[in-house]
C-alpha cells in the first residue's frame, strides 16, 4: 500500500524523547486496526522507537479512518 503523505508530521527537532534524551525524527510507522494496516510517517524516537500520535491527527484523520473501517 502506498504511504499516506497526509500523515507526515515533521518533528524538526522540537520533540524530545525523555527516556533516551534524543530528538524525535521523521520515521516509519504503521497503524493497524481490524486486520487492516496503513504505513505512515510519524515522529519516532530513533533509539527506543516511541511513535508519537499528535492530538490533531488522532481526532482527525485517524478517527475518520477508524469509523470507515468499523462500518466495513
Amino acid at each position, binding site marked *: 500500500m502506498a504511504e499516506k503523505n497526509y500523515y507526515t508530521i515533521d518533528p524538526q527537532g*522540537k*520533540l*524530545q*524523547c*525523555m*527516556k533516551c534524551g534524543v530528538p*524525535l525524527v521523521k*520515521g*516509519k*510507522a*504503521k*497503524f*493497524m*486496526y*481490524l*486486520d*487492516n494496516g496503513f*504505513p505512515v510517517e*510519524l515522529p*519516532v*524516537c530513533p533509539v*527506543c*522507537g*516511541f*511513535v*508519537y*500520535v499528535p*492530538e490533531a491527527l*488522532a*481526532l482527525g484523520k*485517524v*478517527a475518520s*479512518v*477508524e*469509523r*470507515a*473501517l*468499523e*462500518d*466495513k
Partner: protein
Amino acid sequence: MAQIQERGSTHVYKVRKISKEEMEQMVARCVYEHPPFCSAACPLKLDVRAFLDAAAAGNFKKALQLYEKIAPFPLVLAMGCEAPCEKACRLNELGDGVAIRAVEEAVSRFGQISKLGGVFRTKKRKTVALFGSGLFALFLAGEIEKKAYPLTVFCAEPDLESFLHSETGFLDEAAFTAELKRLKGKDIQFEFGCALTKDFLEEKRAAFDVACCSAEVFARLYPEAVCDPALMFCESLKLVTGTSAGVLDASFGAKKAALTVDRLAQNLDPNNMRGNEGAVESRLYTDLSEATKLTRVPMEGAGYTEAEAAAEAGRCIRCHCEECLKSCAYLKHYKKHPGLLSKEIYNNTQIIMGDHPLNKPMNSCSLCGQCTVVCPNGFDMARVCHEARQNMVSTDKMPLAPHEFALLDMLFSNNEAFLSRPQPGFETCKYVFFPGCQATAIAPETVKAAYLDLCTRLEGGVALMLGCCGAICDWAGRYEMQEQTNEFLDRELAKLGDPIVIAGCPSCKKELAGHEGLKLVGIWDLLLELGLPEGGHGLERPAAMHDSCGARGDAETQKAIREIAKRLGCELTDTPYSGDRSPCCGYGGLAAYANREVAAEMTEKCLERSDAPYISYCMACRDRFARQGRESRHILELVYGTDAGDPPDISEKRYNRLSLKNELLRELWLEEPREMKLDYELRYTDEARRMMDERMILTDDVIAVLDGVRADGECIQDEDGLLVARRRVGNATFWVKFSREGDGSYLVHRAWSHRMKVVKREG
C-alpha cells in the same frame, strides 16, 4: 480491568439472515407511502395533494402540468368527470369535502398551457391508426400522441370541430375553443369524412402497426367480437378498443388502451408489466384534529375564479401520516418514515462485504417503543433496530466502538462496583433492593437512604444488590453477554435465597422481568403500601412528570409515581406526550453513546413539552435533563429529601458507585474494603476535565498512562515543554499531556485517544 474482545477483521463472510417475510410484514404496517384517499379513488391516479398544493399557492401552471399528466384534454375531463375523489375526501366527515373537480376546472381554464408541443419531439417508428370519434377516441388520440407514436385518425366527421364536438356537448364555448386549440396543437393526422365500414377499416389498418377503434365502431362492425376490459383489447381481431360510459370511464379506458398500444408496438404481451391500474384502497391514517376550514368556498359565477379556486384548494389538509415523525426525534433526524428506514436497516444487515452505511442509524434508536404507541398501526421500530443489532453481532459485523464504553461501564458495575449482601443479621432475605447502575452513579445518597428505609420498615430482611440489570448489553444487541449477565445475577440472587426484587428503576424492572420465576416489585409500589417516610417534600413550583420509557405500557407504575408526587405535595402540570406516549430522554438503547447529536435532540424533544422543572423516575432521565440545565429531580430524591445536585461526569459516576459500595461495606457490614490509593498526587485543569468527559476518557485511563510513565519513563516532551505519554488500555490507546509540578504532583492538561494500534515499522 475488564476487557471486551474487539472483532477480529473486516473480512468476515458469515451472514445470518433474519426472515425477509417477517420484515416485509413489519414494513407493511407503515402507511406513510399510502396515497391520500382522493388519489386512491381516482382511477387516473391524479396526485391530488400536489395538485391542490400548487393551486393553493396560486401556481396554476404547475397545477395544470400535473393535471395534464392524467388528462390530454383537461377541460373535457374536468368539466365532465364524476369526481370520485370528492366523495373520498376525509373533510366530508367534518363538513364539506374539497371541491376538487371545480378547482381542476379553474386550473384548466386559467392555467398557462405548457408550450412543449408534439411537433418537435422525436417520433417513434411504429405507427398507429384510430377509427371513429367520441370521448374514448379523443382521449386515446391524446394519450397515443403523448407516447410519440405517429397517429392517424379516421373519422366520419367532416372537420376537426365536429370531431371534437362529438360527445363533448357539455363544454361551454370558451372551453370548446380552448380544447380545439389544444387539439390543433397536437401532432395528429386526420382523415375526415371516412365511411367507417369493415372493408375500409381492414384496408386502412394494413398500413399501420397497431389499430384502434372507438366503442361505437367496434360494436357496429364486429357485434360478435369480445373486448377484454382490463386491456381494452380484442385478441382475435388484434384491435384496441374501448367504452364510453362517461367521461371518467372513457378517460381511464383510453389510458389502459394506450398502454396496450405501447405494448403491442413493442411486440410485448399487453398483459405484462401493467402495474397497479385503476382506483386502489388506501389505509392511510389522517389526523383530522387540526382541520379548521370545513365549509366550501362559494362560487360567485358558474365556476371558480382563480382566487376562489386557490382558496378552495387551500382547504385541503394534505392527508398524510406522520404520527411517529411528529413525536420521535430519531425518525425526525433521519427524515425517513419507519417503513423506509426499516427496509434500509434490513438491507444493511444483509451486506457481507463492503460498507454498512446504516450502522449509525441502526444504533441511534433509543429502543423506547414510543413509535409503537403513537403509530395507528403499531409499527415497532425498536424491534427492527434491536434485531438488526443482534444480527450484526451474530455475524461479527457489529463495530464495538459505539457501545464499548457503555459495555465496559456495565462490566465495571458488575465487577469492581458490584455488591450483593443480605441485610446484616440475616442469612437469606425476603427482599433485595436493586436500585440500578444509574441511581448509584448519579444519586448514591438517595440509594443509601432508600435502602436504610426499606431495611427498617420491611420484615423478613432486605438484601442489597448494586449492579447492572443487563439492559446495557441487551440494548447493544450482545445477546451472549446478556445471557452471561442473567446467569450471573440469577446465581447471586440464589445466594440471597431468591428474594423478591425491589426495582428502583423501571428499565431494570422491565429487564429483570425476563428472568424466569423472578418475583419483582417496584419500590414505588412498596412506598405507597408502607406509606411515605418522614422528611420527604415536593417541589415548590408546579412540575412536569416525565414518564420513563421503561414504564411504557405499565399504567400501574405511572399511576403509582403520580400518587407519590401528589402525597409529597407536588403540583403536576399536564404535558403533551405523557404516559405511554412519552419520548425517551436519549439514554435508552445506548443512543447517547452511538449518536450524541440524535440523543441531544431526543432530550430537547422531552424538554420542549414544558418550561416547568421535571420530575422523573428513571435516574438516566434525571441526569440528561439536569445536564441540559433544567431543574430535574428523581421521585426518590423527593421521597427521601435528598438532592443529588449537579450531574456527575463519567469518571465521577464510577467513583460514586465505588464509594457507595465501600461506604456501605464499612458502615453496614463492617468490612474494610480494599481501596486503591494513588501514591502520587494527580490534578486536572478544567479544560482537561471537560475534554475527558466529552471524549469518554476516564480518570482510570489517565492513571494507567501515568502509572506507566512512572514505571518505564517512556514519554516525550513537546514543543510547549509539556510531557506526553501513552498507554494501551483494552482496545484503545490513551494519550495524556501533563506537567510535573514543583510539589511533585502531576497536572493533566490534555487527553486524547484512538483505537488504532500504532507501531514502528522497519525498513
